[in-house]
C-alpha cells in the first residue's frame, strides 16, 4: 500500500507548497504541514481526501516527491537555496515531458514509454546524466534522479515502467510553465536593457 502513503504525502506537500506563507514562523509552518498530512486522512464517502486527489493526479513520480520534499524543506528553512542547477532541473524534466507525453497521443508508431519497460538504454542515459549533474554539483537534480532509480530498483510503485518513477504530468507541466515564465522574464529584461541606452 505504499502508493497510498505516497498519496497522503503528495496531498500534504502539494497543498503546503500552494498555500502562501501567512507570515508563520518555522515551527508553525511545520505544524501546518503536519496538519495537512492529518487532513489528508479525513474520509469522505469511504475515501480519504488524499485518495480523491490521487484519483485525479494518479501516483506522482518519485522525482516529484523529492522535488516537493525539497520545496517543503526550503519553506521550513531547513535547507539553503540550491546553489546550482534549479534551471537544469526545469530543463531536464520539461524535456522528458515533451519527449514522452505527445507520443501518448498515438501520432506515430514510436512510443518512448516502451523504453521504460526494457529500461537499459534509458538507465544508461539517466546514469550518465546523473553523473554529469553530480560533477556540476547540481544536487537537487541528482537527488531526484537517483531517488527515482533507487525506488525503481525496489519497485515501490505499482508500475513496472521506469518512466513512471522519473516524470509525471504535474512535474512536466510545472517545469514547462516555470521555464516559460523564466524565458518571458529574461525577454522582458532584455527588452528593457535594449530600450535603456536609447533614452
Amino acid at each position, binding site marked *: 500500500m505504499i502508493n497510498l502513503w505516497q498519496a497522503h504525502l503528495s496531498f500534504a506537500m502539494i497543498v503546503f507548497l500552494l498555500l502562501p506563507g501567512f507570515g508563520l514562523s518555522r515551527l508553525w509552518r511545520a505544524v501546518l504541514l503536519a496538519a495537512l498530512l492529518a487532513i489528508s486522512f479525513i474520509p469522505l464517502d469511504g475515501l480519504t481526501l488524499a485518495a480523491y486527489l490521487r484519483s485525479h493526479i494518479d501516483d506522482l513520480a518519485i522525482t516529484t516527491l523529492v522535488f516537493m520534499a525539497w520545496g517543503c524543506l526550503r519553506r521550513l528553512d531547513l535547507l539553503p537555496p540550491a546553489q546550482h542547477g534549479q534551471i537544469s532541473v526545469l530543463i531536464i524534466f520539461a524535456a522528458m515531458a515533451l519527449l514522452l507525453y505527445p507520443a501518448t497521443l498515438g501520432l*506515430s508508431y514510436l512510443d518512448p514509454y516502451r523504453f521504460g519497460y526494457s529500461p537499459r538504454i534509458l538507465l544508461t542515459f539517466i546514469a550518465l546524466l546523473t553523473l554529469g549533474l*553530480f560533477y556540476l554539483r547540481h544536487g537537487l537534480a541528482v537527488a531526484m534522479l537517483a531517488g527515482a532509480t533507487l525506488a525503481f530498483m525496489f519497485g515501490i510503485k505499482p508500475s*513496472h515502467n521506469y518512466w513512471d518513477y522519473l516524470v509525471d*504530468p504535474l512535474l512536466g507541466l510545472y517545469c514547462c510553465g516555470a521555464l516559460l515564465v523564466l524565458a518571458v522574464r529574461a525577454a522582458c529584461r532584455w527588452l528593457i536593457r535594449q530600450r535603456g541606452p536609447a533614452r
Partner: protein
Amino acid sequence: MRIRRPRLAVFVTYIALVCLFASVWLTHPAPVHSSFALMSPTMAVANKVAKPIYTSRFASSGLLDFVHSSAVTALPDGSLMSVWFAGTREGAADVQVRSAVFNATTGEWGAERVLATRDSTQQGTRKYIRKLGNPVVALAPDNRLWLFYVSVSMGGWAGSAVNVMVSDDFGENWSAPRQLITSPFLNISTLVRSAPVFHADGSIGLPVYHEFLGKFAEYLYLSPDGNVIDKYRISRGNNSLQPTVVPLDGQRGIALLRYAGETHHRVLATRTEDAGQTWSEPYPLDPSNPNSSLAAVATPEHGLLVALNDLQEGRFKLSLYGTDAKMNDWRSVRDLDKSPDPLGNPFSPQAYKEIIGHEFRDSSGALRQPLEAQFLSNLDTRVCTSRGCEFEYEYPYFIRSPDGMYHLVYSWNNTFIKHVTFNDAWLSERLK
C-alpha cells in the same frame, strides 16, 4: 575551474551512483517475448458431433437494465461464463459488471451475479470511480480466470483506466480489483473490449485502445501474474479502435479494428509476424464498418470467422462472415440478427412489439420464456423514440471453446445479452 581534487565523500558518492545504476541495469533485463499459445480444440470430440448445431439463448435475465459489451469464456467443465455491464444507462453510476454461467447439461444460462460495482472498484483501487464499462473475461492456460474492465475517475470514456480481477476457482471467488498501469499520462485513456490472447509462457496479450485525442490500438503484454511488462502499438492516428486479435500460429496473427474515421467506413486489418511485437500499417477490408465493434476467431481451415455490422450506418444487422487467411474472399455465413427493414428504418411500437416478441421466443429458452409478457410490457424508451422503435445488434465477442464449439455473445437491443453457439458441422453446411 570546476574540476577540483575529489574529496572522499564525493568519490564515495560517485561510486554509490555507479553502483546504483549498475544494479538496476543488471536486475532489469528486457522482458522475454513469448510466442502465441495456440489452443487446439479436442477434435475427437468435435468430430463426434457430426450433426449441425446452431442454438441461441439469452445469457442475461434482467428486464429493466441497459445491458451491453458482453464477453464469454469457456470453463474446463464444459460450461461458459459470460460477463457484461448493466445499469440504468451506459455511463450511469449504477452500472455493474455482471456475470452468468451457462450449464452445458441443461443448455441454459443461470442467474446473474454481480462481479464489480463502482463501490467495489473504488474500495479495491482506492480511487474515486465515476462509472464502469466494457468487461472482458478469459480463462488462462493455468486455469486462472481473468476479468478486465474499464473504469473512469474523471471525464468521459477517454479518461478510462483498465482494472483487473482474478479468480483461482473458476469465478466462485475473485480478488479485489486493481488498476493496470498502462499510460504515463495520469494512467488514463486505455480501454479494453476484445478477447485477451495468451502466450506460450503464460503471459497475457491484452488488446486495448485509446480515445484521448488520438484513437488508436495497442497490445498490452502482461506477465502471468497480471502486471503490464510491455506494450506494442497496433495502429496510430485517429481512426481505429477496439482491436480483436486472432493468432494464426505461434508468431503470426491478425488484428481487425473498428474504423472510427471519416473516410472509407470499412473494417481495418493489420498483421503481426512476431507474436504481437510489431504490426503492419492497417488497411481497409471489404466489409463495411459503421464505427462499431467486431469480433473474430480462427477456423481449423486457417481462415477467420468474423461477426460484425456490415453496414455503412447503424447497427440494425449483425452478420457472420467467413474469410480466408489473406482476407480477400469474404462469404456471408448467416445474418445473426437483423431488423426486418433492410434499411433499418424504425417501426411503430405495435409492429415492433410483434417482431421482437417473436425474436424473444426464439432465444428465451425454457427458463426465460415466462418473462415474455413482462418483457413486452416493459419495452421502454431505450429502443423507441418519436421516430419509432429500432433494432440494435452490436458488440459481438467471439471464442472457440476447447470442445471445438463456437460461441458468440452480443448486445441484443441493449435489453439482453444473446449467446449464439454453433459447431463446425453447421459451419461446413453453411459454407457449402
